[in-house]
């Protein structure tokens, strides 16, 4: 199977690889997938508690090239968005941007799930920390 230029670019030069401290109240962590399914994505957002804007994002992914590219692209898209804007990101945007073939659409779905999981985790933390007003 041939990969698109964009998938190859993200695979060869993945953006925003790494991890934030999970216990930081301003960090939301989402981990989706399962090793036995062949893909696990961990996506993290660092949110400015006052503005609600995602200042930074990081990922680590176990999965095929398209899964790596989807999560790499997702971190790029997240930066600068508010948490509510981030929730509006649809997997189809990733599919179009990366020119994913039908057999790889599930990779983009997983990335969308990872975004939602990370934001949900951040919101949960923010509520329990009493900074819900920023959300």
């Amino acid at each position, binding site marked *: 199977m041939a*990969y698109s230029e964009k998938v190859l670019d993200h695979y060869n030069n993945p953006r925003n690889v790494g991890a934030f401290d999970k216990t930081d109240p301003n960090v939301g962590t989402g981990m989706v*997938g399962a*090793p036995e399914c*062949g893909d*696990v994505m961990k996506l993290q957002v660092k949110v400015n508690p006052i503005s609600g804007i995602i200042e930074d994002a990081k990922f680590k992914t*176990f999965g095929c090239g398209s899964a790596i590219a989807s999560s790499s692209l997702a971190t790029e898209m997240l930066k600068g968005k508010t948490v509510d804007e981030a929730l509006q990101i649809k997997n189809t945007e990733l599919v179009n941007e990366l020119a994913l073939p039908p*057999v790889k659409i599930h990779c983009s779905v997983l990335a969308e*799930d990872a975004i939602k999981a990370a934001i949900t985790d951040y919101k949960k933390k923010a509520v329990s920390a009493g900074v819900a007003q920023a959300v």
Partner: protein
Amino acid sequence: MKLPIYMDYHATTPVDPRVLDVMMPYLTDRFGNAASRNHSFGWEAEEAVEKARKQIASLIGATAKEIVFTSGATESNNLAIKGVAEMYAERGNHIITAATEHKATLDTCKRLEKNGYRISYLPVTASGLIDLDMLKESITDKTILISIMYANNEIGVIQPVAEIGRMAKERGVLFHTDAVQATGKVPVNVIQDNVDLLSISGHKLYGPKGVGALYVRRRNPRVQLTAQIDGGGHERGMRSGTLNVPAIAGLGEACELCQKEMPVESVRLGALRDRLKDKLTANLDEVYINGTMETRLPNNLNISFAYVEGESLLMGINDIAVSSGSACTSATLEPSYVLKALGAGDDIAHSSIRFGLGRFSTQEEVDYVADKVIDVVRKLRDLSPLYEMFKEGVDLSKVEWTAH
């Protein structure tokens, strides 16, 4: 050294130039039909076919008359299993095979199952080998055939063929073995191993594609088969159709070359394979070899790089041709059923790479491949949340994953 490097010799092999030289005249001047009995064109074609029959028989300890030509090992397996099932239907309806067989055997057995036959699929242990006691217990007075492969195409493990053959003989059950990966690579002898039917493929031993053979025992016992292709009664009535003379001549030559070179070549390949294995295991942690190393083809290495997904690894080593048991590389999106049968878990299958060395592999290639794989595995592990968790001491088997 030329790139890309081919290290997928279990999938197919190139035609050896010496084999091609033998084939060429039969593609050009000597184009006769081996069944033409009344002119020289037919005679020279027949001569080539009979020579090939002898060369193949010699490699496996058989006699020339016991070789039936087919279009390839898929057909050989179909003919052996369906042919026995139909011919011996009055004696019984039970066939024993193994979970790690090639699809050509498994799908054939599934077809027979639909037609009322009972099939036992023996599990394998973590070594990849069947349990002989379990085989013994599975044999009933309705069992007509045991079909167990000689060496596995993914993990290269060699089944205890001689013991299976002895057991089959004792119980009066026919024994078929798919020896596609083993023939020409390790010594195979149908007499010593009590094999009644044996499948061979041309393109796995440096012969052409589209040709194979089935050994059918003629004495002690005389095995009979119901033909699966009708039309002219070629090949002693077992397989009709005009013989593919150039390919058959090539298959014969390929077998002769394998027989001549095996003692030296198998040692050379074993050393190269071990060099690859040692380099990978010395430089990477969390590397698992799939299947036993004790009885294994000298040219096979199947290895899982934990916490790295197979397809992403292949993508990083795109100037090396190997294959993976990862679901993402298969047409069905299912991870390798062979690796799953070893009981190691789907994650190990997803992380597996099969290296198949062959006649044209060099030490320079092995070193290049080892370095490249080590480099890419390290890079992907830096990207892997699972490797990160492993390093933090998290027990991944206890994590609640959101399976999708």
